[in-house]
């Protein structure tokens, strides 16, 4: 757990430094004039230049987590600041970021600073060499869910039978050394698809069994390094590689701690006190258990919420996010919004680049909730500019996994009048094709 805490904090710190270093704070959270909110979280917006402050807070709390100083406050701060950042604009939604939020939420309830931490050093009463096994298993469970659900999501006809979207993505990586020329081979695309699905489904089990664990870890490294080389997925592969170390037993972890201790000249033996953390039976502990159980129940259930919506999930994206559906679709869209003054009948098209960054426009163009939110923004904007009874229509063409683009949103529906909700959006036109599978 200590190794996990240290590496997790370190990775988070590096991620934030990298994010900042790439100029993404400015580009993604300061430059846009408009931000796409999550339903129910409309009040969370970037704070102008103070946005940098949130990132600073987030980075510092990650450092505090690493060294294990004031761990409880640090991890809560980290969870809140990181999640705040993610909620500012859903354009930047990534499953990886959601994973970090989930993991840091879970870690609030775990005694991760009991060993080899500043907290334990300063307050021997809080130092424990042994902690309840369920705390470690809960992290394994979360990782297992991420992998397994990602694997389940790949069991569909586009992925397995058409090798989509890898068939589109891989050939464009022709300039990668050694592998480059192979990637345009059809059998390679199929092999990658099937191996990817198999890997995701099997890896939690392979990591759990002692006999296959080392082999599984080698697979983890190969798989994630490969995804890192092939796709622009930032720090995620490293975070996953590091996280899976949690599956190894205490012996391995002690070796790692020994190494860190030697490098930083920390007296490891101080922490090897043999004390066992026993959680009391108080109401606080009961509450803690309740939260963790509730958290996992939600984790298991939420990805299946798509079953409550009609239509093809990949097309409507109703219930798509927060479900570990990773790298499943090559989807692109084009939107042209038409504003009509209801009283005079005058109309004009909107130049999206007046209001959105290219990245926002790209993400908006194929996701119905973005389209609706933007339509409402346009309605309010032009009403303020003096237009009467503003109507908003969209001509939206979307292509999915190599299919020819087709009209995505009913062009006759006045989006100014449609409401956002968790109910099915009946103005999304049907997919008229079938993707079989889960």
């Amino acid at each position, binding site marked *: 757990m200590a190794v996990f805490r240290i590496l997790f904090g370190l990775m988070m710190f590096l991620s934030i430094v990298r994010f900042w270093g790439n100029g993404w704070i400015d580009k993604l959270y300061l430059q846009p004039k408009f931000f796409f909110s999550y339903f129910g979280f409309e009040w969370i917006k970037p704070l102008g230049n103070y946005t940098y402050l949130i990132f600073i807070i987030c980075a510092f709390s990650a450092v505090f987590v690493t060294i294990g100083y004031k761990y409880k406050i640090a991890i809560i701060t980290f969870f809140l600041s990181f999640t705040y950042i993610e909620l500012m604009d859903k354009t930047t939604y990534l499953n990886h970021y959601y994973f970090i939020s989930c993991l840091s939420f879970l870690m609030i309830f775990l005694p991760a600073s009991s060993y080899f931490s500043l907290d334990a050093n300063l307050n021997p009463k809080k130092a424990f060499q042994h902690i309840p096994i369920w705390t470690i298993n809960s992290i394994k469970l979360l990782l297992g869910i991420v992998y397994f659900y990602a694997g389940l999501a790949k069991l569909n006809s586009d992925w397995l039978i058409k090798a989509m979207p890898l068939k589109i993505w891989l050939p464009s990586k022709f*300039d990668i050394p050694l592998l480059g020329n192979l990637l345009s081979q059809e059998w390679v695309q199929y092999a990658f698809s099937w191996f990817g699905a198999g890997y995701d489904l099997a890896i939690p089990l392979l990591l759990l069994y002692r006999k296959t664990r080392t082999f599984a870890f080698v697979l983890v490294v190969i798989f994630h390094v490969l995804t890192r080389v092939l796709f622009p997925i930032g720090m995620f592969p490293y975070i996953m590689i590091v996280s899976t170390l949690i599956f190894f037993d205490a012996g391995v972890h002690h070796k790692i701690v020994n190494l860190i201790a030697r490098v930083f000249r920390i007296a490891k033996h101080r922490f090897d006190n043999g004390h066992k953390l026993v959680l009391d039976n108080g109401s606080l502990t009961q509450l803690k258990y309740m939260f963790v159980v509730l958290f996992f129940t939600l984790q298991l259930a939420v990805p299946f919420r798509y079953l409550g919506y009609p239509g093809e999930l990949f097309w409507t994206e109703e219930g798509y996010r927060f479900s570990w559906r990773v790298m499943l679709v090559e989807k692109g869209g084009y939107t042209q919004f038409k504003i009509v*003054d209801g009283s005079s009948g005058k109309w004009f098209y909107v130049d999206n680049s007046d209001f959105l960054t290219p990245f926002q426009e790209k993400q908006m163009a194929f996701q119905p909730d973005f389209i609706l939110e933007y339509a409402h923004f346009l309605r309010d904007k032009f009403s303020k500019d003096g237009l009467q009874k503003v109507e908003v229509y969209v001509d939206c063409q979307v292509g999915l996994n190599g299919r020819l683009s087709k009209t995505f949103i009913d062009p006759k529906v006045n989006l100014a009048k449609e409401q956002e909700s968790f109910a099915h959006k009946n103005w999304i036109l049907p997919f008229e094709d079938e993707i079989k599978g889960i």
Partner: protein
Amino acid sequence: MVLFISLIWACSSDNGGDIPQPPVDGGGDDPMEDPQEVSFKRDVMLVNWADNIIVPSYEAFSEKMSVLIESFETFKNEANTTNLIAFREAWFSAYVSWQRVSMFEIGPAESADFRFSMNTYPTDTDKIDGHVATTTYDLSLSSNRAAKGFPALDYLINGLGQSDEDIVAKYAAPEKDDLLAYTEAVLADMSSLTAQVISDWKNGYRDTFVANDGASATASVDRFVNDYVFYFEKFLRAGKMGIPLGVFSGSTLPENVEAFYKTDVSNELFLTGLEVVQDFFNGKHFGSTATGESLATYLDDLNTVKDGEDLKQIINSQFDKARELVNTLDEFRTEIETNNPPTDMLLAYDEVQRIVPLLKVDMVSAMSISIDFVDADGD
């Protein structure tokens, strides 16, 4: 562990880098490899673009610019209607030729701000009149974009009077020297920019362009396809048709047509632009019917792998359909000024519009080219 972390760092530092790699052999000794299935060669396409389309187009344009300057010299020496008409013809012919290079706003053209310098319209006649009156101006300033280039010449050649005699009279009036000097300055600016762009292409940029044949967001193909789609959407579709039609403003803006003072040429300028975009799509060599590796053959290549629809055909038919409808239109300015609403032109515009999603969604996603330069992570 330290080793592990340093390994991680080593890997992250190659982020988006375009480290040139030696070409990897296709490996005929690999029994699994089907020799038929050769992947598309982007470098061959880049060579075709540069050597058979871009550079020859620039050269042809440069020749037209020389003719234009010569005809101006003649007019300057003797301002009469015959010489005005010849000057105007040279202007028009250069303007048409411009449509063949306007699209290539990458590298030298981009750094020279070529497109905006040569063709920002509507032209700012107040500014031009002011410059002529004060005789102090610096045309290299970007604030003067709307006072130079072809649209300024349009005003100076076609817009100073009702008839040719009226226009010639301006060039015979007492302040004619300032007017001639301004016209000359506009031409000099255009011709020096053109010379600079061509020379940059020939001395280095062509090789840079062709050598950058990778697949990252900064590779030539990715960048140029972005520029290509952008040109079609913003300058051809919106600039030449949509904006004057008022589709972005709610009311028509006839003064925003290209070549406002010589309105019988706006359609031809648009149609040339459309033809150039389609020719480029099909990799057609400049001034010839020969074709080479192109976006179309690239799609063909990907489609054979993909078993998809024949996207090349779909895109070409849409180009043809758009051209067909635009061909039936009256002069753009007349369409816009006399019809309320200008239904025929709006219908033609719709067909032009339909090309955008085909390029911007279907084509780029088949090629796995990202349509913006955002380097954010994906998942």
